[in-house]
């Protein structure tokens, strides 16, 4: 499948990665090459085959529904680019 610049721009937007308009043609071309390679998968007969959810036949383990962690606000915020008064600070989200 060939990806056009418009689709490349839409994917970049969905992925929240800023791509300058002059970079879109090359990006679209790379996507087309990679997706062309992936399309070999259409040769495989997958009728009646379940999509793999877990590579080992295991059930996810459950634990009691109780608090096991917490009360470490300083550590949680220690690497934040902008932390104020015990919170992560971000640009205004709601108008």
């Amino acid at each position, binding site marked *: 499948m060939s990806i056009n610049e418009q689709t490349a721009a839409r994917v970049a937007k969905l992925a929240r*990665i800023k791509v300058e308009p002059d970079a879109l043609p090359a990006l679209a071309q790379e996507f087309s090459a990679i*997706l062309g390679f992936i399309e*070999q998968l259409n040769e495989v007969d997958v009728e009646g085959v379940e*999509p793999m959810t877990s590579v080992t036949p295991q059930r996810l383990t459950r634990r009691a529904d109780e608090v096991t962690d917490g009360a470490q606000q300083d550590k949680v915020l220690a690497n934040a680019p902008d932390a104020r008064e015990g919170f992560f600070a971000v640009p205004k989200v709601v108008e």
Partner: protein
Amino acid sequence: MSDLSKLTLAGARDALRRGETTSVELTETFLKEIEGARALNAFVHHTPEIALEQAKAADARIGAGDAPAMCGLPIGIKDLFCTKGVPSQAGSAILEGFKPEYESTVSANLFDAGAVMLGKLNMDEFAMGSSNETSVYGNAVNPWKIDERELTPGGSSGGSAAAVAADLCLAATGTDTGGSIRQPAAFTGITGIKPTYGRCSRWGVVAFASSLDQAGPMTKDVRDAAIMLEAMCSYDAKDSTSANLPVPNFEAMLTGDIKGKTIGIPKEYRLDGMPGEIEKLWADGIAMMKDAGAKIVDISLPHTKYALPAYYVIAPAEASSNLARYDGVRYGHRATLDAGDGITEMYEKTRAEGFGLEVQRRVMIGTYVLSAGFYDAYYNRARRVRTLIKKDFDDVFAAGVDAILTPATPSAAFGLGEMVDADPVQMYLNDVFTVTVNLAGLPGIAVPTGVDSKGLPLALQLIGKPWEEGDLLNTAYALEQAAGFVAKPDKWW
């Protein structure tokens, strides 16, 4: 003792226990080697203070008669592992300045076993790459050199491979999502094992593709791999896919006796245009297994061809989801914003500045294959193919095959920069022999068994049954003994 840096993990362990050297002496030796090897760009964060403190503690433990498996042994840690208070960037600008407040389970297990951390090792950004050329730290360089060119140590665990091959540490941790332990091990003439999915906890290891990622050791030989793998493995409630199974004493299983074992040779791994040297390496390996008393059988893994395209749907899909967390809010880089920029601009600018081009490419491919209208056509189809790939392996193991022998890589190490103008898919072909193993969750090990006509190392891969790393390591040990690979790179750095 003469040149301590040349010791194996087992050799150093035994020397320590006999009192022939100390952990401090070993550690100082390696710190000096690392200092002299800046040209390799293998170590990217140096932790000499931590190393010497751990070494002193280890010497005290050994003196007190309490010497666990890795006690006093200096190693390097791939930058993908979160190490408490020490930069852990996954080779990415987006984690610039990030110092975890916690320790990954694997590195914690190693430190509990007495290991000494010399520093953090270079890698492809977020483990996405096969040449260590996508790293924010710049290229790691292969200690093997045959002309004026600098060669890649492979990737993504390129720094780990270069450091072990150049005797900058006794061993190193690696991680493997599509071949990132086995391919660099092959390119540098060392041993690397990816255990069964679920053997090593993924907790505290920066996630790339969670259903494929596994940690493993990169070492000078098979015995060292057995020792270090055992120390890394554990059941961990903090990783929901961690296996609650006992961890065997892998080293004790190394007898070298493989009489009566059945080794499968998959015809689909014989690629068109495969270099004659790889063909010969493989044929020699088959002969060695046969001489050691194994039964050789031809097998078929019919969906092999589709492993790489399935991988390049599943891994980017998982990566696009995992890497959504790098948003400039909680840790790492945040772009400088212009007046009037809102939260969306913050995300977009932060991720454009923080992620390198290969990471951006894979995140966007993943976003595309998961997007409305394409999810079934790409992502679900790839997961169905993955089921068939695993079934191929299940069938041959059920038919009595104990291990599978294949080449580890389609070529020897190539020059840094040589693939720059190639289509991204050309670089992906490096993983053609290794990626099936991740998709099927199996253990796989790369063992150096020869050199090419120019003198560069080449390796074979052995693939084992799930949870039978001990048996796999023993088969690898037999191969190692038969191959007698002892070549080392000449020191030029």
